[in-house]
């Protein structure tokens, strides 16, 4: 895998191109979010600001779901934070490939999206920093513009589930996982099996977000001896 991407604009541009299909999807989902928020009586400014300063599909829908169902502010915040807790291990995974001091790295870390993070993974735990940042740009634009369109137009987009678009993400993550498994050793396979068992076991008993976080415990296998 070439790694000239750290320099120049080539890596960013490649990332932007790779992010475009997901930007399309983000735009559709954002329109739904905007329309949903408007229907909940959030007004115009609040949902748009929410998308601008947070840009998190899962967290924003969680807040809308909890508040929309009459839940309290604390419950809404807790649901969103749990869902986004996955960005902690994701941030640790990309950390060695970010540039500069702590402040610069913290800023670059803001571009972590689940899709961009996965797109930028290069197997064996390596990441392409410029690719990740580039991939986030079109998705961020689509997300904020889409939210505004949804809020202002009340457009009801076609049923995402009927089009099968909800499987785009797990299918994409599976394709990348299979690449990780091909390039990784026995320990990668073992960690994958343990993570699958942990996630499946936690889904019925833990709130959303916790299964993904808990499954990261499988990575502790790395503490054990050497070999790959």
């Amino acid at each position, binding site marked *: 895998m070439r790694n000239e991407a750290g320099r120049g604009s080539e890596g960013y541009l490649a990332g932007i191109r790779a992010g475009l299909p997901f930007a399309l999807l983000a735009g559709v989902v954002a329109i739904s979010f905007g329309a949903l928020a408007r229907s909940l009586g959030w007004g115009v400014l*609040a949902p748009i*600001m929410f998308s601008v*300063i*947070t840009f998190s599909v899962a*967290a924003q829908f969680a*807040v809308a779901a909890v*508040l929309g169902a009459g839940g*309290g*502010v604390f419950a*809404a*915040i807790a649901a*969103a*934070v749990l869902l*986004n807790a996955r*960005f*902690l*291990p994701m*941030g*640790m*995974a990309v950390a*060695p490939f970010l540039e*500069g*001091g*702590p402040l610069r790295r*913290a800023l670059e*870390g*803001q571009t*972590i999206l689940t899709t961009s993070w996965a797109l930028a993974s290069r197997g*064996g*735990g390596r990441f392409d920093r410029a690719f990740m940042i580039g991939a986030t740009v079109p998705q961020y634009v689509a997300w904020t513009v889409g939210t505004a369109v949804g809020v202002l137009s009340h457009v009801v987009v076609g049923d995402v589930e009927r*089009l*099968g*678009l*909800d*499987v785009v*993400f*797990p299918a994409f993550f*599976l*394709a*990348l*996982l299979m690449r990780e*498994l091909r390039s990784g050793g026995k*320990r*990668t396979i073992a960690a994958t099996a343990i*993570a*699958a068992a942990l*996630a*499946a076991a936690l*889904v*019925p008993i833990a*709130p*959303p977000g916790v*299964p*993904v976080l*808990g*499954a*990261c415990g*499988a*990575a502790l296998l*790395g503490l054990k001896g050497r070999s790959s």
Partner: protein
Amino acid sequence: MSALWVAIVIVALANAAIKAAGPILAGGRELPPRVNAVIALLTPALLTALVITETFGEDGHLALDERALGVGVAAVAVMLRAPVLLAVVLAALATALARLLG
């Protein structure tokens, strides 16, 4: 400030803090090899958890439905060396078709 704005601002701040924490904690210095080994395994562990929860997770329980079929089709496509994008499109098509017929 209304409850909505409180939620929006706190979620935004928490989100930024979570995204900043990993890069600050694990970047910019040499880590012991064992810690690096753990960090390297976070990627397959996270991908696995995302696949499991998004394929089988349904309102707090596990379900076997049209999503599993679509993701299965993607797995076969990848095994047959199809490009990732094609595998993903086939997955969506298979799931949509199964829902249409189901």
